[in-house]
């Protein structure tokens, strides 16, 4: 039984699951009671992928074969269940589990690779989490369709994708209203105000001592609760949402900037003193550059807060456009796929916003140990 020792546990378990699937055929039962879908090609693919380590191929070949086999199996499984939702038998789920285990095996193999070439390493670092995300979607799709969960409760990713493709104009209008008006305006105003007050607080010790404890406390408060009040004051359109965003982003910027301005070392400050440098010279040449990592941290925290603030504020009243408006009304109509589409767009927007900030940060604080990796 030497092969037991050579095979990884995922492969062994996958083989066991394939065997169980064999005993419980057919794969899928249609509404009419007939068997649907052919299990054989799927099982052959999976068994071959599981037994692959016995051949002792180079890692790269093993990974490549696993990649093709598990995704082909997953595609065949979903193709078999599509149209026969809810008709999955135990064998279907056994094969889904087997292919997931082999995908896990694939990710393990890829995680252990340490390629010398820099480009290849970056590719791997992107590929591994991407595979994780793809398999999350595959399992979601297979389980929702296999178990026959009503699409009205939890639509499969394919339907959400279809919905996104079919409602691009609506989504674009919502993004325009929520992100390009409320979020960006509020974010810019809130961050600028927080920064300006931080400089003031830095200049006047009394102000700093009074504001900092308050600022730190406010960051723990559910500020989002001011949303209904802002809607009442500034009306249904985007200015009220921008106001919420201003309030939410102000304090993180204030607290982080003040902390950052204190970050310059004692020796560096003494150096400026020996040059008899003035307050503004010290600020611009030493303390602001030293504070940059803190300021970018606040900018990044605020990017998420701004989106949350604008979307939640729209739950309290909007004109008939906007991401928060769409989410709350479509939930009411039980158009859950539209809600998911909107959430996917919000997630994408949030990631892009954050990613752009992170790129600017890398360029601006290239000297910081966390960026240059030293």
């Amino acid at each position, binding site marked *: 039984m030497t092969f037991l020792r050579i095979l990884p546990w995922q492969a062994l378990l996958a083989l066991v699951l394939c065997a169980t699937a064999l005993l419980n055929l057919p794969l899928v039962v249609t509404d009419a009671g007939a068997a649907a879908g052919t299990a054989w090609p799927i099982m052959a693919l999976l068994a071959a992928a599981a037994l692959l380590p016995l051949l002792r191929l180079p890692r790269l070949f093993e990974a490549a074969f696993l990649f093709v086999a598990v995704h082909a199996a997953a595609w065949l499984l979903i193709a078999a269940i599509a149209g026969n939702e809810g008709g999955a038998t135990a064998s279907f789920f056994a094969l889904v589990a087997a292919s997931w285990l082999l995908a896990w095996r694939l990710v393990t193999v890829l*995680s252990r690779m340490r390629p010398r070439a820099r480009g290849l390493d970056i590719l791997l670092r992107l590929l591994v989490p991407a595979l994780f995300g793809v398999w999350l979607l595959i399992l979601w799709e297979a389980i929702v369709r296999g178990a026959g969960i009503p699409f009205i409760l939890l639509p499969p990713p394919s339907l959400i994708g279809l919905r996104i493709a079919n409602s691009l104009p609506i989504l674009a209008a919502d993004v325009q209203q929520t992100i390009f008006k409320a979020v960006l305006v509020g974010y810019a105003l809130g961050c600028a105000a927080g920064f300006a007050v931080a400089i003031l607080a830095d200049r006047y010790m009394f102000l700093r001592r009074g504001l900092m404890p308050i600022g730190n406390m406010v960051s723990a408060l559910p500020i989002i609760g001011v949303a209904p009040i802002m809607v009442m004051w500034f009306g249904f359109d985007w200015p009220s949402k921008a106001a919420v965003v201003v309030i939410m982003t102000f304090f993180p910027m204030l607290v982080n900037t003040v902390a950052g301005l204190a970050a310059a070392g004692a020796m560096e400050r003494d150096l400026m003193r020996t040059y008899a440098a003035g307050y503004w010279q010290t600020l611009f040449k030493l303390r602001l550059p030293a504070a940059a990592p803190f300021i970018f941290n606040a900018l990044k925290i605020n990017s998420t807060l701004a989106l949350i603030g604008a979307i939640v504020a729209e739950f309290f009243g909007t004109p008939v456009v906007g991401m928060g408006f769409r989410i709350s009304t479509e939930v009411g109509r039980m158009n859950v796929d539209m809600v998911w589409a909107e959430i996917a767009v919000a997630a994408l927007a949030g990631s892009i916003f954050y990613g752009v900030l992170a790129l600017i940060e890398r360029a601006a604080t290239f000297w910081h140990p966390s960026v240059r990796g030293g």
Partner: protein
Amino acid sequence: MTDRLRDKIIPVTAILAAIVVAWYAGSYAMNAPFQRDLDRRAGVTSTTWEFVAKTMSQPKPTLPAPHQVAVNFVENTFFRKLSSNRSLVYHAAVTLSSTVLGFAFGTILGIAIAVCIVHVVTLDRSLMPWIITSQTIPILALAPMIIVVLAAVGITGLIPKALISTYLSFFPVAVGMVKGLRSPELTHLDLMHTYHASPGQVFWKLRVPASVPFLFASMKVAVAASLVGAIVGELPTGAVAGIGSKLLSGSYYSQTIDMFAALVAGSVVAVLLVSLVGLAGRITERVMGGRPA
């Protein structure tokens, strides 16, 4: 003590006083147009002081004066039966229960995920990027859907709200805990290596103690997030109970004083929760023999 008075108490009190003064000024400025309109229609002329007093005693002001909010808050907190629908203690307790439940789940889940990520390379490389990315996503947008979908399958009440709180609070804990478990310096790890310590021993004797400050710091963030989750989770349920529903019903009927009082109640709950977590952290660190900071 005098240092504390000079460095903290006086400046904070001064700033708070300035905020209250600005608030009064703001409430006069924002309520005056409506009051003027009212007076003109009623044909009333009043002295300046009478007019100022009137702007600060409207039943539904645009911006209620601080004392109006304070009176409302005190009345609804201390002088209402706990079962009353107007009792802020009742609403706060409803929100608090789902916050605490969600926070407890979230913390346990976050720690578990962090332990897995630190020990399994595959998870570190595949799951960690998603945890970081998911922090950039407005997760709160999911809240109404979770509530409605769970209600459709018959799950209502505490659990859906607690789930949202769990969801919001496990991210900070997981990220903070991963950082904490990885915080021991290389020399400390090398020292354990020279003792031929087992992975379990390294974990319990080095990684866990090193991670405690990180854990409590992230738990403070998590409990605040958890409260926000619970409040937002109360919005789509049609304003039944809780601080969130109080805010929503206040906005339906323009009861600004009620809304501000509910906001104050939410803030009090937040401060209490964060202070409690902070206190627990300090006690734990003292028991573990940490330096008093």
